């Protein structure tokens, strides 16, 4: 009996030779415990060593293997062949990012945005080591815990039409992380983050398409974070209007 096979159609782009990206089809063995990343590894090891893509953990933790799979942003280590078999699978690099080579995208834009929202605890006062740890109750932790789960896989940016239309938009994961630190009881950096999050390129470009939350493999729900930031920023704005002599 011959082994069952599956066709994988991959968008290739080799900057030194290609003018435009083009699809190339490979036939790979079908195993029901294989994910798309396994198929790519099979191609790379046995069929075409020139294929480029990023991956590391193979367990939905590192966030480096995001790709468009049949038009949907997914972690390729998390997308089982059995969900597509016997149909062809179409694999493309993540939408909305420039293609560096084959399935590898240029993510510098996100890295800059992530840095701009200061995604780390900014304490009101530095604590000396002998003051001990800054205690936080489980209830306080749970207000933001979901937002800490982000693995920077950028599926949400690939899913977001507003990011595609307005590349200056800070975007879902960065805004969700800003919200995460704003909600943290140890943090006092909200004012600084608001400079970015509440600016014109911050939350206001979001039209609540909601796709970021749909595709997020870690249930971070960036759409909710953005919505809550819009409300809080609006309240700030009216407060400042009513009390122009208040702080700031």
């Amino acid at each position, binding site marked *: 009996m011959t082994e069952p096979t599956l066709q994988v159609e991959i968008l290739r782009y080799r900057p030194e030779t290609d003018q435009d990206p083009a699809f190339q089809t490979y036939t790979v063995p079908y195993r029901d415990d294989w994910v798309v990343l396994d198929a790519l590894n099979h191609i790379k090891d046995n069929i075409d060593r020139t294929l480029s893509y990023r991956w590391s953990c193979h367990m939905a933790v590192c966030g480096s293997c995001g790709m468009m799979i049949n038009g949907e942003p997914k972690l390729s280590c998390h997308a089982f062949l059995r969900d597509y078999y016997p149909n062809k699978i179409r694999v493309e690099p993540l939408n909305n990012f420039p293609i560096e080579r084959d399935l590898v995208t240029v993510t510098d834009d996100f890295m800059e945005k992530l840095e701009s929202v200061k995604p780390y605890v900014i304490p009101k006062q530095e604590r000396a080591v002998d003051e001990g740890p800054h205690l936080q109750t489980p209830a306080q932790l749970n207000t933001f815990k979901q937002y800490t789960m982000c693995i920077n896989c950028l599926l949400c940016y690939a899913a977001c039409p507003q990011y595609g239309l307005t590349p200056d938009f800070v975007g879902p994961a960065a805004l969700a992380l800003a919200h995460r630190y704003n909600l943290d009881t140890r943090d006092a950096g909200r004012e600084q983050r608001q400079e970015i999050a509440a600016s014109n390129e*911050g939350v*206001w470009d979001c039209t609540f398409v909601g796709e970021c939350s749909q595709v997020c493999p870690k249930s971070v729900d960036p759409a909710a974070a953005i919505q809550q930031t819009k409300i809080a*920023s*609006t309240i700030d704005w009216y407060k400042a209007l009513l009390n122009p002599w208040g702080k700031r």
Partner: protein
Amino acid sequence: MAKSNKPIVWSLFAGGGMLSAFVTPVLIFITGLAVPLGLMSLDSLSYDRMLVLAQNPIAKIVLFAVIFLPLWHAAHRLLTTLHDLGLPKGRIAMTLCYGAAALGSIAAAVVLLRI
């Protein structure tokens, strides 16, 4: 310090969206379908009744809110939707959308004050 003036339009958008989520379907049903089709009596919208309603100061405020907020909601959403459809974000589109909402609101206020 305001980082952006978007909160003004966004709060009108959100308020209007909330209000119209609750009241627009039933209003459309009554005035556009039930009464014209005879499912509800024409008296519901009769001249005398509507006049009494529109002359009541509290009803005037309610009517104004029901016109004004959804109108701004719609104008803001129209602007973002035109952008979604490929129209560049610019002063012209913004002036047209918000300008239309402003004109509509003024017209509503004038008509309500004069009844």
